[in-house]
């Protein structure tokens, strides 16, 4: 038998495809801004924006509460559009990971990111790119995800006892430094969890923020961790998320020639890093998956009695984004089940489901464990994540917005070697039964 397979497939860097994708995401940003502008009188909008920009922004700072409904949407639209414009300027090719990164920026702009505190990270990454003599586009993912550390800048500027000018200058310098060290560290830390935590930068940033927080505490600066959560805008935010999910679903369906073609490829993927669903199954199927996951998360929040506060809107948008880059219904449901199981069999108070919902939604970072090792390990991963996530916030004082990503890194690092060992034993036994000699045998 002779079989030959060769040649690279057509990629999605075709200018028409890229222009189309850029236009879709730009349209999404404009809609966010329009929602913001029409929701509030201009004076309230402006005051809300000022309050957002001058907030320390560490976890949990809901921009619906600090600013107002309109200013949080406007902030999200502005920062996502600015990020998109930067990507366009740097000739970055949009794909699944970039969609995930842009939706993550958009989501976290409801509770921690704004243009004031994100710029130093982008600058730091830019300086790093110049230092190593490579194009900025190669580090664009690190830059976008890296703005998770933006509260470091805001907290130093507005949350410490420093004078305002000194706080802003020191905050910016620290932010630029953080941006410079983030790309090599985030790449290196991938090995810690073997690519089984999708929110890898969350883990890296957690380690960096832990060091920043430790230094601040060493010099007598206690970090307050606020709990500012607005529940009064839940209906409006829920309608927005539902409309967005339905729009993604229907647009994907239309792009996909009114068929679910490609969905099987998506749900068959384990979702480990690096799985780009746009490349794997096409844009149409990816958008369908994003829409389905968005609706699933909305139903999950409602079933658990949650409200669509800024952080939960951010969490749903992040999951929608990562549904272009690893998450799908088959590998995410076991994680959700594990988190809920841990909450309900422990004495934890589930009367306020905020922590439970946030942990479950962001626990989707561990979806590759369920996708690769199976449902039971997936449930166990969700369970472990729920036990760990509430204990790690103190380490970084809420200065790392991707707190769940930090926790998930530890969970994956602990589980993957253990699960690999089980697989090794199974394989040894299978080979033994077949009478094969195993190359792994010592």
């Amino acid at each position, binding site marked *: 038998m002779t079989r030959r*397979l060769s040649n690279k497939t057509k990629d999605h860097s075709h200018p028409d495809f890229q222009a189309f994708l850029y236009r879709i995401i730009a349209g999404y940003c404009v809609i966010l801004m329009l929602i913001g502008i029409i929701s509030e009188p201009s004076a309230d909008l402006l005051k809300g924006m000022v309050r957002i920009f001058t907030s320390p922004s560490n976890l949990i700072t809901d921009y619906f509460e600090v600013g107002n409904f309109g200013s949080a949407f406007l902030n999200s639209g502005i920062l996502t559009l600015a990020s998109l414009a930067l990507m366009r300027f740097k000739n970055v090719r949009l794909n699944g990971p970039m969609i995930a990164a842009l939706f993550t920026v958009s989501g976290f702009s409801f509770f921690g990111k704004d243009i004031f505190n994100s710029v130093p990270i982008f600058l730091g990454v830019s300086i790093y790119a110049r230092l190593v003599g490579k194009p900025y586009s190669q580090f664009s*993912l690190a830059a976008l995800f890296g703005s998770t550390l933006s509260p470091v800048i805001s907290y130093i500027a507005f949350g410490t006892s420093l004078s305002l000018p000194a706080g802003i200058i020191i905050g910016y310098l620290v932010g630029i430094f953080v941006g410079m060290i983030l790309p090599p560290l*985030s790449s290196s830390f991938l090995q810690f969890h*073997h690519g089984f935590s999708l929110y890898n930068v969350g883990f890296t940033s957690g380690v960096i923020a832990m060091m920043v927080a430790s230094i601040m505490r060493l010099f007598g600066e206690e970090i307050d961790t606020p709990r500012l959560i607005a529940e009064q805008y839940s209906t409006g935010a829920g309608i927005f998320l539902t409309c967005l999910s339905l729009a993604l679903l229907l647009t994907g369906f239309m792009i996909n020639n009114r068929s679910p073609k490609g969905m099987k490829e998506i749900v068959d993927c384990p979702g480990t890093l690096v799985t780009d669903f746009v490349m794997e199954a096409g844009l149409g199927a990816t958008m369908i998956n994003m829409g389905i996951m968005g609706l699933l998360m909305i139903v999950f929040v409602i079933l658990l009695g949650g409200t669509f506060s800024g952080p939960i809107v951010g969490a749903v948008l992040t999951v929608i984004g990562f549904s272009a880059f690893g998450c799908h219904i088959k590998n995410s449901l076991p994680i959700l089940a594990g988190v809920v199981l841990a909450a309900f069999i422990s004495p934890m108070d589930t009367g306020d489901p905020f922590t439970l919902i946030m942990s479950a939604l962001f626990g989707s970072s561990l979806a590759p464990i369920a996708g690769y090792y199976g449902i039971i390990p997936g449930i166990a991963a969700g369970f472990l994540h729920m036990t760990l996530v509430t204990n790690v916030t103190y380490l970084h004082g809420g200065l790392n917005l991707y707190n769940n990503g930090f926790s998930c890194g530890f969970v994956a690092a602990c589980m993957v070697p253990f699960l690999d060992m089980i697989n090794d034993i199974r394989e040894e036994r299978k080979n033994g039964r077949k009478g094969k000699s195993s*190359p792994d045998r010592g």
Partner: protein
Amino acid sequence: MVEKEKARRIVDELLVYFLAHDIVDFQVNVRFHNNGFTAEIHGLCSKAPADMDEFAKMLRIPRNPNMEDYYDELLGTRKSHADAREYHLLGMMIDDAQIAYEDSEFKVKVSRKFEM
């Protein structure tokens, strides 16, 4: 130095595929030239790997320089389980791939141009 390291990781990842499919008698040939390198692995196996088409599909993913610096640490680090089927990253890091099964020999040849 960076490209030599990338070559090592690419070969490591290819070895993962060979070992995962119990191909344990193989030769590796890596050759650097002015603007890139070529890695070729060929080994004996009684039948073509069952997921050969899927593997080829992943290797045929277009190269994506925007991704490789961020994720290349993952190359060659995964365990070589038979059902492991994640070679997207490998595809993103190479410019050309040729896969063939002929006369009980499975052969993979990949090439990569140095970063522009």
